[in-house]
């Protein structure tokens, strides 16, 4: 009888122990779940950009999402848009003064061709936080689609045709080589510097430089506005 009661006690103790352990585990898992929510940020960057290959300026706009993956690292995924435009420099070199030519040929009119380059790109960037998140240094691959009106090889001519009364002028463009559309891969480097933070919103100055397989080099300087949030399970 004593043995039975003893074994019962042991069994009871074991079951209670199991339940207690289970409850503790459950409590721990709930706690760890609560702590494990990673910090996320959604943001919009806007700024000036310079297309160095074509020597034309423009703007960039980028929507991005940042997820903190460790104390020092975060992954920034984005979708950006660049838009550059500039006038043909040859035109002004060949036609220094339109007004002087109009004195001879009043019907003369000419305009420089505008080079417009627009691109869509994405570059998943790994950010390294320095100086307690004040400065962030990022590197990442780049995938870019670009369309341009900029011809890599072209001629601009000013043609004069003397007549008996006056000299007639006209200009023309002859496009020899152009890469209208290009899909290219490359890399991008970014530096983000903390500017201000109000509640969940943060403003950062952002500076980027990118190179791709099409030979395009783009430098950007702008501002990034981010809103932090926690994704609920």
């Amino acid at each position, binding site marked *: 009888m004593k043995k039975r009661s003893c074994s019962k006690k042991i069994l009871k103790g074991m*079951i209670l122990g*199991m*339940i207690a352990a*289970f*409850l503790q585990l*459950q409590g721990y898992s709930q706690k760890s779940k609560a702590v494990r929510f990673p910090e996320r940020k*959604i943001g*919009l960057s806007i700024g000036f950009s310079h297309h160095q290959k074509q020597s034309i300026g423009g*703007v960039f*706009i980028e*929507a991005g999402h940042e997820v903190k993956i460790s104390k020092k690292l975060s992954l920034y995924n984005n*979708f950006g*848009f660049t*838009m550059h*435009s500039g*006038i043909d420099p040859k035109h002004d070199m060949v036609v220094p003064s339109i007004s002087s030519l109009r004195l001879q040929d009043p019907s003369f*009119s*000419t*305009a*420089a*061709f*505008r*080079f*417009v*380059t*627009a691109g*869509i790109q994405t570059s998943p960037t790994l950010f390294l936080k320095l100086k307690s998140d004040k400065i962030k240094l990022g590197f990442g691959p780049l995938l870019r689609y670009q*369309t*341009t*009106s900029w*011809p890599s090889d072209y001629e601009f*001519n000013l043609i004069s045709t003397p007549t008996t009364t006056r000299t007639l002028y*006209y*200009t*023309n*463009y*002859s*496009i*020899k*080589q*152009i890469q*209208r*559309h290009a899909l290219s891969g490359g890399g991008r480097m970014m530096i983000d510097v903390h500017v201000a933070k109000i509640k969940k919103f943060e403003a950062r100055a952002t500076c980027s430089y990118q190179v791709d397989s099409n030979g395009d080099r783009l430098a950007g300087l702008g501002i990034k506005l981010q809103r932090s*949030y*926690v994704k*609920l399970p």
Partner: protein
Amino acid sequence: MHPYLKKLLNMENKIFEHSIENRMVGFKLKPADLVWEKVEKRIQKEKKRRVLFGWIFLGMVMAGVGITFFNSHENEFQPTSSSAISTPISNPKIEAYVENHQPSFDTENELNQLQQTVPIVSESRKKQVFQQDDIDVERSNFVSNEIDHPVSHTPQENSINTANIDRKVVSAKPQGVDIIIIRECEELGINSSAVSSESVNKNIFDRQWNFNTHYSFHGTGDLSGTYIEFGYEKKLGKRYGFYNNIGMSIHSGKESFSSNNNASQLNARYNAMQYVTTGIQTSPTFYRYSKRGDVKIGAGMVARYQTSSTPSRYSISPQPATPGIFLTSIREMEPNSFSLGYKISVELHLLSIKKTDLGFQLFFQNDTRGDVITGFGLSLQNKFKKQD
């Protein structure tokens, strides 16, 4: 307090309790046929479920995770035990109604009214009703969880022990509560099975991030390209929404005359000019949703900045030295400029996966520069609720 007053209050309490008890003891409900059918179905389902839960419970105990079962039993059983009880939990509309119709002392009057309105059922049915009393009393435990506290809010509340009365009221009227809820469900036109998670989600998520990509045309189809848009949409009531966004468009095309000319195509040294038009725009849009929420129509203003390489005045002439080659003489370029306009869009909902929706969108826009941009494409939406 004076002892005499205390005695008096105690007496009053007792009298009050007794009067409630007397009224409740004899209280019996005679549900309508329609109501009874529903109750009967529920009871049958519940019996089957009970057997199943019993086995599960035994299994769980043997495995040593009885605690987990206990928790999940509460979570699982509550919404499925009875449609009438589960609906108030999942549907805020009914929940609010139940809160307003807690079994207070006023409920008595409602029950009396109900008794009058509900037709008398046959004796056999009566027996059946009260054979199920034990089940209903158990179910009343679930009800009492929700309706324990706010039973009485009369001025007498301070002076009487309400806890006992609460229990009595609740245990005496389990069916009454159920039937009221069933009736209210019917009045509200809500079928418990129809209260799907989707409709609940629609109520919960009032904001969304949108990402739209379109195949787009600029002008009368001369230039084609893409239009990409990021936006934030907020619901204003049930049928309206406000959508703010920032969008970018890229359109391009070859100079049509020389590119269509066979001679220039044969001569590989020369190329036609490429025209690119790109713009950034924002278009705050008001949406109106259809009743089912699967179609929405929007209209709004457009503010757009555009840059283009398309000349506004130009001529094409053949090259004298090389026949078949055409040269472009540009007389005037379009300046980079801001413009205002309007945009109309229509969206058709295609599918939803969790919080993400996919839709098909069409749009048309026109601005003061005279540019017409049209497009069609997909809209990806991620719904959320604003976090405090």
